[in-house]
């Protein structure tokens, strides 16, 4: 009954994004939760193992603790976690198909969708509107950060020594020495923490909006309750993120390197000590 009935468009003339709009929107939402958000949880708990490792695993790494002191348990725990990840079969396939491609997909569509909005917090300074705006800002920052993060620490692109690289056999000491490398190290540590907290917000808030998008939380009460759960998840991850940075900034890289060298030596002759 529309007075200006549009002529039926053939499938070829309709852009790809319009034809698969719903699917792309929902895949964008899903990819933020699984795999990307789900990955964020073990990633941050692994990083913070530099601190909780020394608190929880004195017994598990009693030999290095006896030799190098109680801090060595954190170094050993972190190295143990990193070694476990590096030992995963087909790691490069997991990285490409479960991480890099989903992140690229989420980032490209996210920027495309974010550009359809216009910030109006100057007029409507509601908490929800601030979160709407922050979700987009942390998204933009997150794209730049994750690219720098993966390209330097995983692919070894240091951009002329500006960004640190990661030494898998000396996981804790290489991370700590980069973060303690004078002004550049402090800047990287602060920027890193800023970006990580931004992405944690992005994940927690995205988890909250995804429940609305998919229609899991309908009533205002349900949205409030799920919001509280998301805040709890965000706070827990933020604690893990902050803990990790404090742990690496305060760790003595020389001592850590000795522990790691010891562990490498142990791994080379496993039968001898057990």
């Amino acid at each position, binding site marked *: *009954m*529309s007075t*200006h009935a*549009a002529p039926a468009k053939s499938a070829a003339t309709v852009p790809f*994004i*319009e034809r698969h*709009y*719903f*699917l792309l*929107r*929902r895949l964008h939402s899903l990819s933020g939760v699984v795999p990307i958000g789900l990955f964020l949880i073990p990633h941050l708990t692994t990083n913070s193992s530099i601190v909780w490792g020394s608190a929880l695993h004195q017994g598990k790494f009693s030999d290095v603790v006896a030799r190098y002191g109680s801090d060595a348990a954190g170094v050993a725990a972190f190295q143990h976690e990193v070694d476990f990840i590096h030992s995963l079969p087909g790691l490069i396939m997991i990285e490409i198909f479960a991480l890099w491609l989903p992140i690229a997909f989420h980032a490209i569509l996210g920027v495309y969708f974010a550009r*359809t*909005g*216009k*910030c*109006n917090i100057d*007029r*409507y300074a*509601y908490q*929800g*509107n601030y*979160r*709407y*705006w922050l*979700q987009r800002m942390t998204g933009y920052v997150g794209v730049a950060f994750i690219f720098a993060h993966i390209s330097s620490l995983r692919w070894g692109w240091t951009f002329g020594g500006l960004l640190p690289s990661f030494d898998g056999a000396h996981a804790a000491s290489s991370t700590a020495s980069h973060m303690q490398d004078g002004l550049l190290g402090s800047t990287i540590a602060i920027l890193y923490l800023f970006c990580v907290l931004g992405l944690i917000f992005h994940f927690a808030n995205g988890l*909250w*909006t995804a429940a*609305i*998008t*998919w*229609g*899991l*939380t*309908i*009533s*205002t009460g349900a*949205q409030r309750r799920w919001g509280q759960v998301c805040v709890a998840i965000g706070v827990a991850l933020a604690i893990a993120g902050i803990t990790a940075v404090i742990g690496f900034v305060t760790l003595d890289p020389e001592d850590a390197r000795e522990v790691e060298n010891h562990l490498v030596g142990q791994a080379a002759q496993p039968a001898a000590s057990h």
Partner: protein
Amino acid sequence: MIASPDTTSANPIRTITVSIKRQNGPAEQPRWESFQVETQDTANLISVLQSIAARPVTTEGSATTPVVYDAGCLEEVCGSCAMVINGRVRPACSALVGHIVGEDNTITIEPMGKFPVVRDLSVDRERMFAALRRVKAWVPIDGTYDLGAGPQETPDRQETRYVMSTCMTCGCCLEACPQYQKEAEPKSWDTSFVGAAAINQARLFNMHATGATEKDARLEALTGEGGVNDCGNAQNCVKVCPKEIPLTESIAAIGRDVTVHAVKKFFTGR
């Protein structure tokens, strides 16, 4: 009969300054004019605009044209007088001077920014009605024979639907929405974001026993580009809705319905 103003009690006559963003026509440049108005705290903004129309002289003393605005019911049910008052969208009829006048004794009024200005504070909300057509916001009862009595409605359902039915298409939810942008060209109305009001109406008619016969068509319209997926969950709509309609609940409910609709369509093909 008009009662004489009560000047003895706590509602004295006061003089305020009203700054209005004016525009002579759709393609004209906007300008600001201010007026001194004698009014009372209990007066609404429409009566302030009536005072200006009765004596269209600016603060500087120059004669001007009366300010054009839309108003109908004056009791917040017709939705025609929504405008941006002190930076926030709301119906002018239910905006009382005492509640909105600032410390500086000034009230600022602008037309809504998401719709084409007809003149001054009057805007063309046609896109909202196009959105209602887009989501088939009606009950299909037209036919060649008597359909008889409709199915019974439970009081519980009726209560849920009642508040949703109070939407007056004022446009406040769209004006405050960061995802809803001005689209002067009717051609783009089929793919640009449909907005909270129409999504709520789709839910209202989907929940109607007879209206539900068009449910799939409504969900199909809200599945594609410009449908419910374009919501960014800023939730400004529910904050500014003068009728306190749970718009964000309607958006979430339609979100669930299009999820089910899409899965059903994937497996059954329709």
